[in-house]
């Protein structure tokens, strides 16, 4: 792997770590498998890119993208809590709907931002080459968001949110409306995912309606890798793990793409299969192992 590829993987790792933090918030903290992210990531990108191409400020475009993502998360939470639709299905419905919404927002399947002003533009040309600057910017954003998330999860509201995922009966008995905490959690999560999408669009110079495919799987892979690497003993550890997991995941993919097995070389189009297999192994192996151990113990 070349230094450029390495820095590229690092940039992606940090960029999508924001998304992975969102997935951690729903999947692990709230115990709500939320597939909305496949739609809210391109939504953030679409809103941001559209705002910029119509002459808007790139910073404002990110704020708008985040708000749009939060609304998307709220919609999924509404379907699941108020209309009692199974959480997984509720999120799939929002995700599907967002595909149309994203096309409407952009007015076409993709928008190029190469000649437009982005939040990265003012930082460019100040001595640091882009392949070093971009990963640094993303790392800084991840650091800020990670610290904010850690702080929030230790506030009164944050404790209520964590307890909602851990034990809804208990937190209800303590006077908390779980409908509210689920809505809050999903809005925050999808806000982070949309932020990730908006920043990715601005850094890679385009927003595409298909850029969200497989987001949830990549997010899960990061969360699970993080748990394997640093454990999930506390919120702080888990958050560090998620970021680390995201970076390791992108590095692993970059590595996989650079190896050849005889005539067979992996292409980016194989990534979803690889990631899916990775997640299946990570989710399935612990269960299989304990089953095997039990069987051995019996024999």
């Amino acid at each position: 792997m070349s230094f450029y590829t390495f820095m590229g993987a690092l940039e992606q790792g940090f960029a999508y770590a924001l998304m992975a933090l969102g997935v951690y918030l729903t999947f692990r903290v709230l115990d709500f498998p939320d597939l909305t992210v496949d739609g809210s990531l391109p939504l953030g990108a679409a809103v941001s890119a559209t705002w910029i191409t119509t002459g808007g400020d790139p910073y404002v475009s990110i704020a708008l993208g985040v708000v749009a993502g939060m609304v998307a998360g709220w919609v999924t939470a509404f379907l699941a809590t108020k209309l009692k639709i199974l959480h997984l299905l509720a999120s799939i419905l929002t995700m599907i709907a967002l595909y149309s919404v994203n096309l409407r927002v952009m007015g076409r399947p993709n928008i190029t931002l190469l000649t437009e002003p982005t939040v990265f533009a003012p930082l460019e040309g100040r001595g640091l080459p882009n392949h070093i600057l971009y990963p640094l910017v993303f790392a800084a954003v991840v650091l800020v968001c990670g610290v904010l998330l850690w702080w929030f999860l230790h506030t009164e509201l944050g404790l209520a949110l964590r307890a909602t995922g851990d034990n809804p009966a208990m937190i209800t008995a303590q006077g908390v409306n779980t409908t509210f905490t689920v809505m809050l959690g999903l809005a925050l999560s999808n806000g982070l995912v949309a932020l990730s999408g908006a920043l990715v669009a601005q850094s890679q110079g385009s927003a595409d309606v298909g850029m969200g495919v497989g987001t949830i799987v990549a997010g899960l892979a990061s969360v699970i890798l993080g748990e394997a690497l640093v454990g999930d003993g506390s919120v702080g550890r888990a958050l560090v793990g998620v970021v680390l997991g995201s970076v390791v995941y992108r590095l692993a993919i970059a590595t996989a793409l650079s190896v050849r097995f005889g005539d067979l070389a992996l292409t980016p189009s194989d990534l979803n299969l690889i990631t899916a297999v990775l997640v299946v192994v990570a989710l399935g192996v612990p269960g299989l192992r304990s089953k095997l151990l039990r069987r051995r113990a019996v024999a």
Partner: protein
Amino acid sequence: MIQVEGLIKIFHRGSVNENVALSGVDLHVADGDFVTLIGSNGAGKSTLLNAVAGAFPVDAGAIRIDGRDVTRLPEHVRARDIGRVFQDPLKGTAASMTIEENLAIAARRGLRRGLARGVRGGDREEFRALLATLGLGLENRLRDPVGLLSGGQRQSITLLMATIRRPKILLLDEHTAALDPKTAHLVMDLTDRLVERDRLTTLMVTHNMEQALRHGNRTIMMHRGRIILDVSGEERRGLTVKDLLDKFHEVRTDDEGLSDRMLLA
């Protein structure tokens, strides 16, 4: 004070599984009363407790707590006035969160939860003192996840959580049934201490007749969704477990007699 009037709850209404869990229950629990609630399986004890807590809407009747009609209030709103301990020791605490975080959640019951720190410096001293009264050594384990603790320890913490902010009523749903006898004894001792300390209006469901007579100042027996026995004061003091069992058999036989008659008719 709890006032229950004409409470009716029918599960699976209109289906083959229709089950009249409460068929017109009237109950008045005065301030500071500690009522023990007994009855066979399916008698409606837990249903009554859950109806008061607001776990489901009732089909008819009214529930008032300290004079305020709560019949139509959702569970989390009623929770402001209610301390609860469940039968399952795992149900009252969040396993992945620390002891101090669990207690901090309970310390804000009924208050607005905002962006202030969940566990504040001052809280820790209070929690440590409370935990020390348990005599389980938990006062030095504030930052341990609750999931590491035993069922008895978790149930003790749940009791502290239910009473850390004085509730208007305390609802205990067979909260010692899942514990070994020794631990159950410890948890009952703690229950008595806490109820006495705050003079809590308490409703305790139990399967254990001896427990039902030894604790509290009033005992109620339910059968088929109705209250069939309500004793307190002198009358209760003279009551033995055998008396309660006799009463049980009496109503059982009545039932059988009734169904026989129905079959013959």
